[in-house]
């Protein structure tokens, strides 16, 4: 035995190759399942025509039964606030009040809000006096003043459909739900390459994926066009003032408490918004959401979900930004290894699985863009499809950057609202950052 020790080199290479193969195969399979599940969920609404039909609002019938308190937090938004209030007042529902929440340090917005309140008794103004301000604190301030059966949340620049409240009213009564989440849709897909992808993200999220979450009984809620029964909201003690994704957190806490959430999406009834004005603000917005998701994950309310599958879905959903970041880097790397490294053909095939799933996702995104154009009567040109495909990898890089940034900030304990640092400078983007997807 000792005469001729095994040649280290030979064995080493063989061992390395085997190890590499096993490692690559394992990583590939993990990535594949991740991408496959994400794809499966993303396509939820289009699984069958019946599912698609069930994602819409039912036609309101049998009159009205509920009263609404609509919260409208506004900060340095004197430019758009009045228009939003006027549009909300055009709502065809007969029983609602609008509570505009303004900061004590923001006289311009307060002036606009008070003027509106003077003109119409349905508008009231609540002043938030917190030293450090953020959206959940503002809304918690207004909660005791709500007189309606249902609290609804909108943002100051939202375009709300006049029939929305009637449909939500009907949805509450027809389903006995505790929460109704309406659709939110970014519309300006033609503005830039990233806004195109951003719009499509919203489309797939609100059009499709959220319905799956509602069905499974675990749902991270959106930041606006969300309606909660007032007593349920008060029992839950409102929003978490320290969470960067207070809307997601509320959804997680309510679903963990077994509350029924219903999602409805109608292209003519969605709340229309615009994408962040610059790549940097998109990055910051995404960082905040990711950090918020991380906080919600660490709070652990989702552990109280009754079903194992629900907890798994919660764990996966809250980790998604980080998994997405990892897979965005790993999938191309993996494919490159398969092509250029001398691994067995079988292993090479396995390494292509995630890329295949990514390709299928790409194709469905293209079809989704077509459908988006159809639904909203927007003209989608060939160049937009091209942008969608070419922009895909770059958007992945952006998402990965935001995910890494979020982890970094959370590690260093920086959980302030990033937007406070540039209050007054980027008015419009401040408010736009408040919509999670």
């Amino acid at each position, binding site marked *: 035995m000792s005469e001729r020790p095994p040649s280290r080199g030979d064995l080493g290479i063989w061992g390395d190759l085997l190890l590499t193969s096993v490692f690559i195969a394992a990583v590939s399979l993990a990535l594949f399942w991740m991408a496959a599940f994400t794809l499966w969920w993303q*396509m939820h609404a289009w699984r069958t025509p019946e*599912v698609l039909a*069930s994602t819409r609002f039912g*036609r309101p019938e049998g009159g009205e039964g509920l009263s609404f308190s609509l919260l409208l937090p506004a900060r340095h938004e004197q430019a758009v606030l009045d228009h939003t209030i006027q549009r909300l007042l055009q709502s065809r529902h007969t029983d609602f009040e609008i509570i505009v929440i303004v900061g004590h340090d923001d006289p311009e917005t307060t002036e606009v809000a008070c003027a509106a309140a003077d003109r119409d008794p349905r508008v009231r103004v609540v002043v938030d006096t917190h030293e450090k301000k953020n959206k959940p604190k503002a809304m918690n301030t207004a909660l005791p003043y709500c007189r309606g059966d249902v609290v609804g949340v909108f943002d100051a620049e939202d375009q709300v459909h006049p029939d929305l409240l009637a449909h939500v009213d009907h949805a509450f009564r*027809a389903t006995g739900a505790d929460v109704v989440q309406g659709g939110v849709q970014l519309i300006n897909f033609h503005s830039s390459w990233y806004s195109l992808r951003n719009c499509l993200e919203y489309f797939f999220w609100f059009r499709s994926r959220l319905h799956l979450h509602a*069905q499974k009984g675990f749902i991270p809620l959106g930041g606006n066009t969300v309606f909660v029964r007032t007593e349920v909201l008060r029992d839950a003690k409102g929003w978490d003032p320290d969470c960067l994704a207070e809307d997601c957190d509320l959804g997680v806490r309510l679903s963990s408490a077994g509350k029924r959430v219903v999602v409805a999406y109608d292209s003519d009834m969605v709340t229309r918004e615009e994408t962040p004005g610059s790549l940097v603000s998109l990055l910051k917005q995404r960082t905040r959401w990711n950090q918020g998701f991380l906080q919600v994950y660490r709070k652990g309310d989702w552990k109280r979900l009754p079903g194992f599958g629900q907890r798994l879905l919660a764990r996966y959903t809250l980790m998604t930004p980080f998994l997405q970041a990892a897979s965005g880097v790993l999938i191309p790397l993996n494919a490159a290894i398969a092509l250029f490294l001398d691994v067995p*053909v079988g292993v090479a095939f396995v390494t292509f699985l995630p890329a*295949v799933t990514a390709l299928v996702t790409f194709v469905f995104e293209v079809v989704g863009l077509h459908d988006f154009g159809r639904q909203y009567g927007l003209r989608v040109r060939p160049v937009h499809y091209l942008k969608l495909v070419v922009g895909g990898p770059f958007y992945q890089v952006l998402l990965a950057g935001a995910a890494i940034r979020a982890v970094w900030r959370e590690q260093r304990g920086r959980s302030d609202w990033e937007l406070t640092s540039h209050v007054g400078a980027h008015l419009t983007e401040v408010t736009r950052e408040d919509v999670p997807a």
Partner: protein
Amino acid sequence: MTSTLPATATAPAAAQTPPARTDRPGRRTRPPGLRSSRSDQVLCGLLLVAVVAVQGWNITHYPTLSDDEGTYLAQAWAVQQGEGLAHYTYWYDHPPLGWIQIALLTWVPSLVSPESMTVGPMRIAMLLVSAASAVLLYVLARRLALPRWAAGLAMALFGLSPLSVVLQREIFLDNLAVMWTLLAFCLAASPSRHLWHHFGAGIAAATAVLTKETMLVVLPALLVTMWRHSHRDTRKFALTGAITACALIGVSYPLFALLKGELLPGGGHVSLWEGITYQMSRPGSGFVLDEGSGSYGVLQSWLYYDRVLPLGGLAGAVLLLAVWRWSVTARALAGPALAVGILALVALRPSGYLPAMYIIQALPFLALVLAGAAASVAHAVLRRGRREGERRYVTGIRVVAAALLAAAAAVYVVPRWYDGDRTAVTADANAPYRGAARWLATEVEDRADQRVLVDDALWLDLVHAGYEPGPGAIWFYKADLDPAVTETMPRGWRDLDYVVASPTVRRDAVDLPTVRDALEHSRTVASFGEGPARIEIRQVTADAAVGASRGDAR
């Protein structure tokens, strides 16, 4: 019959009308499936027993072992042995998925008893394939809205026609491809119109094509079926998904070649490109209706076993396409009718190559359209123009007419099929092969050192008897066509010990000099069977040039 919608699963969709909000969004009502229908289960089960009984009884003895069966099974054996995709160099003649499946199907039996891994016994594996295809055909017929009796008729036509019995017993890739194609059609016609069912249909279709590449021509018919069975609101996702899935799976074959560095021609290796070029440039077998052409002979060989299914099915397809406008059944069967049409047109190419197993991929569609045409005729006779309060005698005439038609069809078909199927369950066409295999396994000494030219059907028998696979037991045409084999025979026929002159070997020897020489320089030491079907075992002898073999060569 005025609506433009087929009376199929496109029953009024919930999506057309705004639904009342159900308790849980996403819940849907599913149309009653076959799994819940007792009558369907009983009918399908009884027919399945009949099909398996007729196809299974005497399966090893009839029909005659085919060279191609031997090829695929031997390659499946090579896969099982871990020798790659073939025991000779795999040269991209067909995509390998077909015999990989055969390897899986025969895996357990070959572990239990390795000697049984020969063509005759392993035909039993094909019974599973036939059974699966027959059941899938029934399901498809029901999903295409055929009445229960017509679905049963389609299954019986498909499984019991003497032509089907003969061809489906054999280890042909086409039979496996048919199974996958039927699965694809079933998924495409899924009553729930589920996105992932359509996606699955794309995967199954790609699997079918990778099993036998000729299935490619049927894909447009699959697309038509999918189009008709998808809903307007979800169609673009369903169809794009299916096409993407099909394309991605299909691309795996060139990808496989690329990974092996064999995509394009190059020095010292085979390539996918050359494989495809070879298949596309195979010498044509003439116009199928031109007496004396090879294709005509192939057609006659099909019609020898059965005329009802090929000709009746073709007529049925023409009838359905002609009454498209008026018949709901015709529109529901648009996919299968189109498949028959495409396959017929491809067969009618004047210069094309028409292999004997070509008709296998048409069998399920022929059966479907024939059954559909029967249903259409039955409907026309029994129900067309019928009103409330029709006079009793008119109804009586209708019933009598239908009964007469059915009886006439039965009188024509049953005796012919009875004869054909009786032959299939009683005849023994393979005694010469078994005799030759036994002789070579017992009478030859030193088998490990003997070199024998043998046709593919007997090759595995020799391997199990101790001959060395490759250089010892040699696929006869490799001696001339595979440089790797020719290299081991520097002295040509003189390096051989035996030639097993089966009909295939004698037929092909004309174009294979080494085989021809070996036949000429050998003498018969044992002979099994009579006439053109006989199998001679000829020992190669350097000095005894026996002229007799020359005359037999053709």
